[in-house]
């Protein structure tokens, strides 16, 4: 899957979990930039991403996913 496709799918997950249709993600977006993306919704986002992409994150990886670029990179790595 291309990084752009991953980003698009990730955006859909964010919109769904945060219940916010206006969410726009770019590689530089961080938690501060998105309303409702805090440590609680972060876990829900991570689990939703795991379900959507069929992958699994390491607990240690979770806290490093606070920026969208990292998120896309890690997903791409796991998809092989």
């Amino acid at each position: 899957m291309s990084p752009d496709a991953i980003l698009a799918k990730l955006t859909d997950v964010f919109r769904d979990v945060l219940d916010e249709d206006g969410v726009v993600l770019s590689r530089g977006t961080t938690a501060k930039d998105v309303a409702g993306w805090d440590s609680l919704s972060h876990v829900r986002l991570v689990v939703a991403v795991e379900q959507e992409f069929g992958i699994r994150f390491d607990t240690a990886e979770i806290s490093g996913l606070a920026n969208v670029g990292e998120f896309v990179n890690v997903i791409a790595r796991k998809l092989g």
Partner: protein
Amino acid sequence: MMEPLYTDTAVVAAAVLLYLLAGSAILRPLWAPKLKETLFACLNIAACYAFFFHGLPFSVAKLAFTPLATFVMYVAFGVGHWYLVRAVSERDRGGWLYAGALLYAIVPLVVIKLDTTLRLVGFSYMAFRMAQAVLEVRRDPMLKVTMPAYAAFLFFPLTLPIGPISPFGMFAVGFQPDRLTLQTVTHALGRIAIGYIKFRFLATIAYQLTFANLWTDGYQHGVADFLVSSFAFFIYMYFNFAGFCDIVIGAAALLGIPVKENFNNPLLSTSIKDFWNRWHISLSEFVRDLVFTPLLLGMVRRFGLNAALPASILAAILTFVIIGLWHGFQWGFFYFGLMHGLGFAANLLWSRIMELLPKDAARAWNSSWMSHVLGWALTLVFVACSMIFVEYADSAGRAQILAAFSGKW
């Protein structure tokens, strides 16, 4: 027995200055990293011994060894952990290794806390610093941790006594070649000055109005005095802790070593969640990463996304109880943690209730000044009251206060 260094401020200031000069002499020049790390480790270990162990029996209350012997074991314990950190860093897998590296740090902490008369200076922070390093290398396989750098990091005298719990990655920036600018230096000096004013003066003034001072005058005190003293202790804690952290961060900046912030205007908090993003930040973020997130993740994976709310509440209560007990295994600290856990849970429930309202109404309320002021006032009162359990972690003290409480306004 030799006299401890803490006899007066001038001596302490001179000793810290000497340390900063020696540290700069080691870190500033363009030497080989290995040499810098080794020298800085030696300096830090020597400084920790001089500042906190030499002739200071209070650093090692009730441990059966001399301060020197205890210090040597402390250093060996820290350096020994490096082998585990390196192993975790080099192996991609290793559930047992990872758990072992964490338990190596946490189990001794629990053991020491179990005996409330035991004390080893900075150990609470040391254990968490070590555990955090394990999380760091697991998360970032590219992070290089050499033994001298790790030793220098663990025994960095500025953060040894009361933190902040700053990550290895930040500390290691100090080894990189970098010129200090005049702006950085003046900023750092200003930070130290502000910290000193908070720690030495403002904290002392606030302390005059706490329960320990205001309520021990033999008279009865009412609700107004209760609020005054609760706030006084909260403000005292803030000035005392944040002031000292300012000094630590400023002094470390003079060495070119960034240190994690611990406070961000906590008196402006508008909710318990907001409070813990502003108070003792290095601790709350670490416990969130070590306990809250993995726990919540495990529960949501197991029970589904719909279980997120009850799972968050459970994880939050447990996390805050742990934060409370980290301060000491006493009922007062437990109640403190429990109070914050329940406050946080109330926060979560309130957010969920807001989600059930029409979007526009909820948004309007959340951005209104009234919701901010109400949230702020409630949070401040709640936190101030919770601090009573910190001022009086044991029930005897609390009973004394209750005895002097008139129950009237």
